[in-house]
């Protein structure tokens, strides 16, 4: 690799890293309560050597399915201060390098590959799904991206070995390994449709990764498969994601979207190169899963954005080739500056403005830790479930670990009813039923349900305010 592009790539990487770290460190808490669940698992590994298989605090006690590799990797890194912020940021920014190399494989062009790297470093979606989050997706995205790169360059022994290692690691990290095999199978289908021959080694690697990922996932999710059958793909999730195509597309970023679609068209109908077919498989496969609601929306959009950004590289290359043929080719540098300005306005600024601090004050949960009885059950919205277990060390009524959790739909409905309903008797009945001791109702919670206070509060016979933002249920 030449020195100049490497330098530019490093600058993009550090810019992206600094951007991520700045946003993360400017927030008092991590975004997404699942981050705190992950921290709890790591704490458990540090104290017992094992992840949490039975969570006594979640849903009043339930079994968990934990794919442990992500937790063990971070448990090993946990001696470094702020490891849960620094390493996820590093991992997210590392996608820049991977994207650069994939783009280079597709386009064989330095400039468009570097632009692709720049685009991938600042996707507006990251502010909602990756930045300041200690999420398994921060590892999954670069890993799958890396495996895509390895698959493209599989004939090189070094990449072949890495692909095998990645295939072995992936199912131990997250169930999205299924997504990877789905993409590869979709790739096989498209390659056949396009009459492009896949090398024997690639076919073999595909067969191996398919069986390995399948077997390991069957082992991990045996209990879930038995309980839900084929419905396991919906993950027992009570939230019905309606894929809002317009909001989704905005989050993907206008540049990657426009250039990505153009790149996919050019790649699929004109270039017909295997690497481009793979990117098309990724994008179309994920889109298919998203449209049929078969994949977590955040994960789906993440990979959709990745696919589109990579596909953009082809559109960029073709644009530069075309530019060189026109009479305004001498204005190339100016056009590059315009492109960078467009990037700033359409990618960087939306990523920055799209970022919100999810939690600003959790002192009431701290109060619950110190004052509530050890076996108390705290009612909090779904988005706060893991915060209750992590910060207060008390039982929650619902959290986002839906798989194997009891009666998630009903609980989700009941929590909404207690917060947003108006029937006093119904609320009392539900609070009794779930043995709730405290209701967590801060301003942030009120904003979620768009309420001033609990509508049905009449007297303090059963529900008493013990602190700003906390009610105690006495029965």
């Amino acid at each position, binding site marked *: 690799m030449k020195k100049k592009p490497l330098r530019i790539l490093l600058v993009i990487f550090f810019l992206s890293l600094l951007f991520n770290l700045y946003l993360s460190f400017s927030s008092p808490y991590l975004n997404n309560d699942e981050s705190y669940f992950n921290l709890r698992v790591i704490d458990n590994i540090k104290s017992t050597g094992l992840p949490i298989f039975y969570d006594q605090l979640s849903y009043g006690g339930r079994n968990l399915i934990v794919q442990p590799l992500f937790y063990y990797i971070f448990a090993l890194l946990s001696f470094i201060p702020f490891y849960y912020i620094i390493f996820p940021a590093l991992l997210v920014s590392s996608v820049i390098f991977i994207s650069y190399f994939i783009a280079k494989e597709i386009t064989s062009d330095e400039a468009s590959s570097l632009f692709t790297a720049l685009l991938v470093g600042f996707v507006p979606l990251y502010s909602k799904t990756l930045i300041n989050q200690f999420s398994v997706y921060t590892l999954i995205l670069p890993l799958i991206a890396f495996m895509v790169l390895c698959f493209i360059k599989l004939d090189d022994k070094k990449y072949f070995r890495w692909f095998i290692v990645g295939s072995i690691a992936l199912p131990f990290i997250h169930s999205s390994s299924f997504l990877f095999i789905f993409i590869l199978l979709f790739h096989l289908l498209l390659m056949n449709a396009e009459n492009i021959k896949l090398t*024997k080694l690639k076919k*073999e690697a595909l*067969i191996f990764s398919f*069986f390995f990922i*399948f077997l390991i996932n069957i082992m991990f999710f045996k209990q879930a*498969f*038995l*309980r839900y059958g084929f419905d396991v793909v919906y993950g027992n999730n009570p939230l019905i994601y309606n894929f809002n195509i317009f909001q989704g597309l905005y989050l993907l970023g206008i540049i990657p979207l426009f250039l990505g679609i153009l790149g996919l068209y050019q790649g699929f109908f004109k270039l017909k190169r295997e690497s481009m077919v793979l990117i098309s498989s990724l994008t179309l496969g994920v889109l298919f899963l998203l449209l049929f609601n078969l994949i977590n929306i955040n994960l789906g959009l993440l990979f959709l954005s990745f696919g589109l950004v990579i596909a953009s590289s082809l559109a960029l290359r073709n644009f530069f080739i075309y530019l060189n043929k026109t009479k305004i080719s001498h204005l190339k540098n100016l056009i590059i500056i315009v492109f960078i300005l467009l990037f700033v306005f359409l990618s960087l600024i939306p990523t920055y403005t799209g970022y919100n601090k999810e939690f600003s004050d959790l002192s009431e949960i701290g109060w619950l830790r110190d004052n509530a009885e050890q076996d108390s059950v705290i009612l909090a919205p779904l988005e706060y479930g893991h915060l209750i277990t992590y910060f207060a060390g008390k039982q929650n009524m619902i959290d986002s670990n839906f798989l194997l959790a*009891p009666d998630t739909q009903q609980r989700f409905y009941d929590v909404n009813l207690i917060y947003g309903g108006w029937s006093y008797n119904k609320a009392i009945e539900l609070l009794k039923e779930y043995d709730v001791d405290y209701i967590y109702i801060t301003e942030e919670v009120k904003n979620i349900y768009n309420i001033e206070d609990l509508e049905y509060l009449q007297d303090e016979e059963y529900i008493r305010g013990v602190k700003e933002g906390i009610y105690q249920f006495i029965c």
Partner: protein
Amino acid sequence: MKNTLGGLRKAYTNLFVNPYFIFFIGFFALAVVYLFRGFVMHGQESYFFYRISNFVLENNIPNYDFLSFGGRAFFYSLGSSLFLVLNNMLLGISVETLLVVAPPVFGLLSLILFYCILRSFKLSRNVLSFACYILILSPVFLYSFTHFTSFTIPLFLNLLGFFFLIQKKRIFSYLSFLVYLLLPFFGFIHILFGLLLGFFYFYSIKKLKRFVPYAFIILLVLFLNNQFVGFGLDIINYQFRQLFFAFGGEYGLSIFLIFLSVFGLGSLWQKKYQNLIYYMFFLISIFFLILNIRYLIYINLILCILGAFGLRYIYKLKWTSALIRNLTVILLIGGVIFSGVSFLTDNVKQNPIKGLVDALDFIEGRISPRDVVFSHEDYGIYINSISKKKNFIDFNRAYAPRLKERLFSLDKVFYSRSLTTTLNIFNEFKITHILITPEMKNGLVWNRGNEGLLYVLDKNPDYFSRMYNEGGYEVWRVL
């Protein structure tokens, strides 16, 4: 060093393909569950046959079953029960002992027959032994022979019949005919497989004439069925996921066996249409499986053979990377082993467990024979067999009286909070007692303590009283 390793490899290979070693592994796999749960009856089917056999022993073959579904016509396949009764009468072995001992014995015999049949087709030693190991580890085989089920004897008889059929001596043909004559007593699906297999066998050796006597069996069965029994074609609705063990099928197929079979079909396809007869047999079998899930026990046999071919096919493919080839083969074998081990670990616990038996014993001693006990379908057979009382519903749904109404009412009672609705249904079906188990309260029926019937029972002490409450098992009386 190389010679020593080569020698070791050869020794292991010889051991692996040695029939006695295969039979030992087979018997061990079937017997190992007994070491954990003890030599006791296990599972609903065992208890069902225990009750029916004892009933036949005491009262001859009845035409009415007073206990199942609160009383119903005696429409059961009698083969297994008659086998138990005859053995008891002729050899003096108790029905209970037979129910415990027969499954592994028949399992081992079936495995030996399977081996002998494949050997007579001159399959290579590797394919033959792989097919046997895959069979041993298949959940369907383990389900059939780790406890007494309606498959235990007919599966053995089918293999025995076919084994006799392919022998050259004439005496074996008569024996085979006799065995096939017995099969209809176990259900239509069993004789159907036997004769289908026979037909394709004679067709492949171009001696279709020899099939003619066997064809009369099916005509006889259809005639007898039409004239006296009225069983119909034995078509049973089921969910697609029940076909797969990993997705909750009680005796479903291993997913990895299906993968292997796909490769096996690939191996057959190398000779294209020369193997047309096998494809036909396979397709017709799939069609029968669509009609009746119990055909799975026979599809499993076919898939085990296809799987063994598939494994050889994968191994013999020209792979670019030997490492990937070996890892893939290990993975596929690992997947098959996982299904088998998974089945065994799920079935080592005795069913029914002590808490349930205590509750059922309590019911036996406390309530009158006319009373109907309401519970989940999974406990119906135990209510009949252990408590010796009438159930509201059990797994023998075929030809059950007012089945649709019962299923509708069952749902209504479980989930309705209306006392009137519940009492009306109880009156209609003369339900006097209710059995509730911890499993029912923890996901089998309800997830929370105040859902449907639980709420009704809790809030209406004037209408229901709890007679028994031990370890989460509850017996309620309708006042």
